């Protein structure tokens, strides 16, 4: 059984209008999305800005209410749980946020930030609490003394680590990372990515890794789902997606990545032009009359594509 199974998830935001500000339409931020995560793997969610990645992630962790569908964590449907019941599942899913600056409360010391979940779930004595916090602080590679500092005294990468330490304190099984490095400087990105890989092994974590940077996705993920306007266009292993993309949208996405080898400039441009041409010519093969993609179709054990 899959560790996390998302079934026909839909998240609609109401659009109000008309005379009485009634709901006249919906933004279909996530529109019938299904995927599965196995324990210990990293699943990447990629797509253009606004395609619904964040919404998917936040719905799974319960920050946003699902409009329809199921989110099964080890077989238990999270969407059907009451607030109270959900509380117990809180510990199993944690999140790493995009912006290390706004995700840490600037008015709290690192100790208080990291201890916050402990205080909510475990009754520990101050000593125990401190010990535990220090343990995690060291785990994420910071000096144990850091716990008395405030977030602004750390660099972006260090902050992101603090965020990770906070997520780890409850021994979660699943971590949702929503663009964990996109706000970081190039030189710091690597630090965090490496570190995330390390702790994944150590703590047996499952990642749902959200990003629009295909380089990072490729580096981190075992399996990848490509999203387009709230739906999946393609899903497969990293190899399959990058070396054998099936959907024109996927191809286009991959060809758009700049090639860091100046020698291949010409070819890259040519490739891009070809794919663009293909995209325009064969558009109707991939998208229906309303410009929406077709349901996923399995083409191999691990690879599915949205083609008619």
């Amino acid at each position, binding site marked *: 059984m899959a560790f996390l199974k998302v079934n026909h998830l839909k998240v609609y935001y109401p659009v109000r209008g008309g005379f009485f500000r009634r709901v006249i339409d919906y933004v279909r931020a996530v529109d019938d999305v299904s995927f599965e995560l196995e324990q210990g793997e990293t699943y990447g969610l990629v797509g*253009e800005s606004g395609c619904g990645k964040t919404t998917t992630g936040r719905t799974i962790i319960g920050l946003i209410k699902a409009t329809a569908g199921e989110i099964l964590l080890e077989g238990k449907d999270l969407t059907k749980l009451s607030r109270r019941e959900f509380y117990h599942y809180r510990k199993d899913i944690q999140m790493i946020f995009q912006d290390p600056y706004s995700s840490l409360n600037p008015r709290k010391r690192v100790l208080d930030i990291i201890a916050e979940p402990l205080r909510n779930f475990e009754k520990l004595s101050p000593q125990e609490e401190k010990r535990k916090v220090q343990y995690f602080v060291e785990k994420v590679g910071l000096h144990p003394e850091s716990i008395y500092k405030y977030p602004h005294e750390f660099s972006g990468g260090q902050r992101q680590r603090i965020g990770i330490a906070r997520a780890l304190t409850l021994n979660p099984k699943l971590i949702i990372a929503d663009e964990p490095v996109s706000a970081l*400087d190039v030189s710091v990105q690597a*630090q965090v990515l490496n570190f995330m890989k390390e702790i994944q092994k150590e703590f047996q974590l499952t990642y749902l890794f959200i990003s629009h940077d295909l380089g990072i996705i490729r580096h981190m993920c075992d399996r990848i789902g490509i999203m387009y306007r709230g739906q999946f266009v393609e899903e497969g292993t990293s190899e399959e997606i990058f070396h054998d993309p099936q959907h024109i949208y996927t191809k286009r*996405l991959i060809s*758009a990545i700049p090639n*860091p080898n100046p020698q291949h400039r010409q070819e890259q*441009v040519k490739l891009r032009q070809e794919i663009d041409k293909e995209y325009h010519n064969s558009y109707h093969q991939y998208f229906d009359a309303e410009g929406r993609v077709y349901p996923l179709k399995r083409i191999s054990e691990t690879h599915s594509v949205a083609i008619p």
Partner: protein
Amino acid sequence: MSKQPILQIENLRVSFRIHDEYYAAVDGVSLTVNENEVVAIVGESGCGKSALALSIMGLHPLERTKLEGTIAFKGKNLLPLSVPQLNQIRGKDIGMIFQDPLTALNPLMSVGRQIEESMDYHTKLSSSAKRQRTLELLKRVGIPNPEKTYDRYPHELSGGMRQRIVIAIAIACEPSLIIADEPTTALDVTIQAQIMGLLKELQQQMKTGIILITHDLGVVAEMADRVAVMYAGEIVELADVNTLFSRPLHPYTRSLLHSIPSVQTRKEKLHVIQGIVPSLQKLPRTGCRFKSRISWIDESEHEKNPILREVAPGHWVRCTCYKNFYFPQDNIGDMNYGIS
């Protein structure tokens, strides 16, 4: 093929006043941009890229900024010019593209008017001629429906469209130099690819020089002719794009290249640059500024007063600390690399 230099920056220092004292954010930068050439400036956030770009345009707040050195545009030093004099050049001879296409556009003005505006001051065209030209520009930057778009407001356009407008503004008067400060950072990859293509195309058509500021090495590889790597206000390495990617010398350049995950190759671990860029006030002002971040290179390997040296024709590196730093895949010996 000999190219005409259009911009020659000599020993530029840009200092900002913080707590009554001036701190240099750009420190002794010299750089030449030739006609029809794309010079990329890369570096970590805060290394002074934007400060450099803004000083060319004279856009720093005068009361809090000190500019030293020379910025010669077509042989004329821009630094001593007054604002009205600068206005003759801004927009006409030098165009600028900003990072965030939403904030760079006036929300209350139709985009057509915003493009036209620079023509108001630099040309004597009639208003219908200006409009005509604006529509052409819109078409040129790939806006499908220029007539309609002319009267639109920025918020009604998508990010990619907006950036096209910003580019149209920059090229409105056919400048001979365009400064693009992270023109694609805020955009999705697919849009980024389009915008890069557009820029390249325009550059080739108009034979303008471009200063391209970015931190995305992929973009650099695809766009630039020459690359300047900046660290802590200084240029640490300057070379043509092929050289820089195939034979990076400065440890900082190397680290940058290795720390970026690539789609093509999958590594288990990425290279990590230790530490962080120090803040402006705490910047080391003597010695090799990168020293503190490469602990495995011995103190003594760094120069006391590192200068930018031409180690091979067109390849400049600051500090000699790279010399004993061995990279197996490099073949330094093959080439005529020496220390002059």
